[in-house]
């Protein structure tokens, strides 16, 4: 492939010298004593830097943070470690507990070890989805919603009261959604229950088939089925779309930066989700995990910093007081919107996703 004229030894020499110099800090960085560490798998910007520094100084426990970008991958990683996890705390949305519990990857939460448990807003700490198999499983940290987001220069708030504009003719070719998530919303929009509570197989199949047919029919009008929050932000900035379905966090961050965007929960309703820190089953430093979780809950300002960094809403009581007006406006909903919001539920996930996953493939292939 390559040939003599391209390169000679000098390249290697220069390269090795330069990279050795660059690599030095990594080689000499201190080895972490296993007893004094806590291992956290979390999303970027979920653990504020200021909190990490303070915690490490106060307790002497080093936080080893592993950044993840997808819960499916997180599950795969943990499952691949086959009962000898290298993590103490993982980040899981409430409606995905079931998958991790069934594979015995996370441990039930011992609330007795968290003196600051009461600082979690009751809306979250006492919600029905927190209990699976009669036990509590995670510390709620950040809440988000499946929202409709739009460019305020083009779309009016009145139009945005309904999901109709996402599927209608007016903005054809200027919309985007996450296919997996929009399935639940379309079920709700068509009068079904996206959580499938109490559904038998026939009813569930009917709901999924209806949503699938609806989305295939609307396929010529959609610009993009996307995956990552950053993609959605970029599509709004690049004006490839003017309205779309998104998670609230990335949209909040865009609004906080001054982009003319808004988000809403349309009148037909939508779903919310809550990220939790869960203690890993058989994790190497369970005691330190509880120390970290308790410290995180100790002050509402920590929650506010988490909101600023991630765009999602803090679950800690009183954290909103530490946000500026713009930040508050960018990361909150009106009462009317909240009334239309319900949480995702894990109860019927197996039934639901066994139907939804193949339907998503079919829509993409249609």
């Amino acid at each position, binding site marked *: 492939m*390559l040939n003599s004229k391209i390169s000679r030894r000098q390249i290697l020499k220069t390269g090795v010298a330069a990279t050795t110099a660059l690599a030095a800090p990594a080689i000499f960085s201190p080895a972490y004593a296993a007893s004094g560490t806590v291992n956290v798998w979390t999303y970027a910007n979920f653990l504020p830097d200021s909190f990490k520094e303070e915690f490490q100084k106060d307790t002497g426990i080093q936080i080893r943070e592993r950044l993840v970008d997808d819960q499916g991958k997180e599950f795969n990683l943990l499952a691949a470690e086959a009962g000898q996890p290298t993590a103490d705390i993982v980040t899981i949305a409430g409606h995905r507990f079931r998958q991790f519990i069934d594979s015995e990857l996370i441990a039930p939460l011992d609330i007795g070890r968290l003196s600051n448990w009461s600082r979690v807003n009751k809306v979250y700490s006492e919600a029905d989805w927190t209990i699976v198999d009669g036990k509590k499983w995670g510390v709620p940290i950040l809440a988000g919603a499946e929202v409709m987001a739009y460019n305020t220069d083009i779309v009016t708030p009145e139009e945005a009261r309904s999901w109709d504009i996402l599927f209608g003719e007016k903005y054809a070719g200027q919309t985007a959604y996450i296919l997996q998530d929009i399935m639940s919303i379309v079920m709700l929009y068509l009068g079904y229950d996206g959580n499938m509570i109490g559904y038998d197989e026939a009813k569930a199949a009917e709901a999924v088939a209806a949503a699938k047919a609806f989305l295939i029919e609307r396929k010529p009008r959609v610009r993009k089925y996307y995956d990552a929050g950053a993609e959605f932000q*970029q599509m709004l900035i690049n004006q490839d779309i003017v309205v779309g379905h998104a998670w609230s966090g990335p949209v909040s961050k865009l609004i906080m*930066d001054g982009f003319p965007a808004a988000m809403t929960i349309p009148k037909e309703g939508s779903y919310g989700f809550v990220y939790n820190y869960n203690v890993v089953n058989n994790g190497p430093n369970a005691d330190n995990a509880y120390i970290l979780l308790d410290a995180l809950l100790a002050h509402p300002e920590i929650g506010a910093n988490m909101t600023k960094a991630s765009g999602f809403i803090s679950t800690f009581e009183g954290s909103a007081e530490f946000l500026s007006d713009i930040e508050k406006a960018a990361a909150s909903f009106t009462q009317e919107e909240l009334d239309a919001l319900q949480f995702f539920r894990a109860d019927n996930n197996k039934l639901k996703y066994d139907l939804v996953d193949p339907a998503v493939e079919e829509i993409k292939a249609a």
Partner: protein
Amino acid sequence: MTRHTRLIMQMVYWAFVLYLFIPLSLMVLMGFKDSKFIGFPIKSLTLHWYKVVIQDLELMSVFAYSFTIAISSTVLAIIIGTWAAMLLSQAKFKGKIIVFALITLPAVLPGIISAIALRIYSQTLGIEPGMTAVILGHTVHNVPFVTLVGMARLNSQPMSHVEAAQDLGADNVISFFRITLPYLTPALVGAGIFCMLTSFDDFVRSFFLGGYEPTLPVYIFSQLRTGMSPEINAISSVVLVITAVMGLAAERLMRRK
């Protein structure tokens, strides 16, 4: 070729360079944007993101970690790949085509498949996720490229040189180091640059095989959830400048020689 076609080719070359560099210049430009997001319009410019990059010790160690992995896996891949190239081009034995197929197989495996297969496999071998596993993963992927390049070069090697050395009493090992290796070196340097490139750019293997320290692509991927910040453009611009300077310096050294 006529002057005419030569001109056309020259234009195609420069058009190709333009095609490669326009996205790059946009990337560099966005690193100076005074906003938390990349894209037009740009209201004002700032050096803020470069300051963030320089002051961010965590980022520097991510950087260094990626480089360490790239260098180590490249060195390993060159040793094993050259060995395989020697075997495949110099020795005659039955089932050579099978060995060739086995050695080059990882080059054509889709990343996600090889990553997950390696992750499960390393678990059964007792290799913890982390630097060792990532280095091995990248080595597996890179060996075929070194082998292919090495074989191509060896196939054009005049055997008379090796034979002459052996007539003078050198055994196979010595004639390899004195005759064949110098002949191979240019090709191996090329292959090495290529290996470092793929290692440095690899996300999926690094993610599945890695531990707590992220490589640069893994770090960037994790940032994509909340937004593509100009900071990432600033990091990439720094990488670009370092590699360009390294390349140009090497080219100059060569010409002086």
